[in-house]
C-alpha cells in the first residue's frame, strides 16, 4: 500500500516534470516570437497604433496581457522545473544546463531556414592576409581579421577628412596604419606586405599588429 502510494507520487512528479519542461520550451519560443511582434508594433507610427487599438481594443489588450504574463510564466515554469520538482538550486541548474548541449530552439531553426531561403548575407571574400596585419588600401586603413579578411578601420577615405593614410604611432605607443595629418606619418613599416588573396587589395605597405613593439 505504502509502495503503491509512493509509486503514484513519483509518477505524478514525473508527469509534472515533463509538463514543466514542455512549458519551459514553449515559454522560450513564446518569448522569441513575442519580441518580434513587439518590435513590429513599436516600429509603427503612434497614429497608426492608436487607430489599430481603437478598432480592436480587446484584441490588442489580449496580446499585451499575453506578452506581459509570458515573461513571468516562463520564469515560473523554469523555477518550478529545476527547483520545486527536481529540488536543484538555481546555480546548480545553470551549471548543469550549460554543460549539457541541447538542440537549438524552434525559432532559431526557423530563422536559419528562412535565412538560407532568402540567401544569407555573408562576410566579404577571404583575402588570405596575415591575421593582425595592417595596411592602407584605397586610402583607408585596414586590419586583418582572424579569418584573413581585411576589415576597414575607417568608414570613409582619409582624404575626405583632409588626412592621409600612413604608418604612424598610436597614442598607446604602438605603430599602426591610420588616417592622420601628414606631419604625423612615420617612415614606412618594417614588415613586408602579407599575401593578398584576390590580388585587388593593392597593399604595398603593411605591418603586423601584434599589440607589441615592432
Amino acid at each position: 500500500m505504502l509502495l503503491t502510494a509512493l509509486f503514484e507520487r513519483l509518477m505524478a512528479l514525473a508527469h509534472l516534470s515533463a509538463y514543466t519542461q514542455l512549458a519551459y520550451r514553449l515559454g522560450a519560443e513564446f518569448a522569441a516570437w513575442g519580441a518580434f511582434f513587439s518590435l513590429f508594433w513599436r516600429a509603427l507610427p503612434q497614429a497608426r497604433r492608436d487607430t489599430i487599438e481603437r478598432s480592436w481594443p480587446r484584441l490588442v489588450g489580449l496580446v499585451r496581457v499575453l506578452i506581459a504574463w509570458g515573461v513571468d510564466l516562463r520564469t515560473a515554469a523554469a523555477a518550478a522545473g529545476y527547483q520545486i520538482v527536481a529540488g536543484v538550486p538555481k546555480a546548480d541548474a545553470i551549471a548543469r544546463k550549460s554543460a549539457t548541449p541541447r538542440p537549438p530552439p524552434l525559432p532559431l531553426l526557423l530563422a536559419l531556414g528562412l535565412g538560407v531561403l532568402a540567401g544569407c548575407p555573408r562576410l566579404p571574400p577571404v583575402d588570405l592576409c596575415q591575421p593582425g596585419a595592417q595596411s592602407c588600401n584605397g586610402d583607408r586603413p585596414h586590419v586583418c581579421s582572424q579569418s584573413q579578411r581585411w576589415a576597414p578601420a575607417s568608414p570613409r577615405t582619409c582624404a575626405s577628412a583632409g588626412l592621409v593614410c600612413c604608418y604612424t604611432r598610436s597614442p598607446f605607443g604602438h605603430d599602426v596604419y591610420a588616417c592622420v595629418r601628414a606631419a604625423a606619418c612615420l617612415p614606412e613599416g618594417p614588415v613586408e606586405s602579407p599575401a593578398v588573396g584576390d590580388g585587388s587589395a593593392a597593399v604595398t605597405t603593411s605591418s603586423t599588429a601584434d599589440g607589441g613593439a615592432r
Partner: protein
Amino acid sequence: MISLVLAMQFARQMAERFHARLVRKSDAIEMKLVAAALEAARLFGARLPSTDEFLTRYATTIGPMIYLPDSMWDDPRALVEVVTHECQHVRQFWRGSGDGVAGPTDRDLPGGFGFGWLYLTQGEARVRFEAEAYVAGLEATVIGIGEPLPTSLEPLVQPLEGGYALNDGEIALARGLLEVGATQVAQGVALTDAGQTAVELLRQLGVGR
C-alpha cells in the same frame, strides 16, 4: 562638462538626424523578452551579460529603435557617448558600414536585413560594427566634449570582452580596429557619421572646445 538639459537636447537631435527613436528600456516589454532569450543563450555558455546587467547597464539598438537603461537618462556624459554609439548602429542599419559618399567597397558590410543577420550570426561582423560605434562614441567625448583619450587601450577593449559573445581572435581584431580608431580620434577629426554629427551638434550647443 555638459549639463543634463543640453545632453537631452543633444540626444533628441541626434535621434532626429539618424531617423532613430529613443525608448526607456524599462518601458519596453520586448527588452524583457530579449533579456529572457539572452539568459537562455547564457545557459548554453555564451559570453553574454546577465539579465540584470543587460537591462540596467547596456543600451540596445534594434533597427532604428534605441533602448537606453534608466540610469543613462540621468547621466549627461553617458547620454552623449551612448546615443552617439547607438546612432552609429542605426546608421549601419540604414546604410551599412563604410563611406556613404563614395559608396561601399567590397569589404564593407551591408545594412538592413544583412546588418541584423551578420551582427547576430558572425562575431567578426559584430566586432566591426561595434568597433566603429565605439569609435563614434569616442569621437563625441574626446573631440566633442574635450575629454582626454584614455591612457591605455584596455578601457576601450574591455566592454567588448564580456558583452558580445566574442572569441579571442575577434577580440584581437577589436583591439586592432580600436587602436587605429583612437589614433584617428587623436587627430581631432571625426570620421564616423555619428561622430561627425555629434561633434557638430555639441559645437552648436556650445559644449566642449
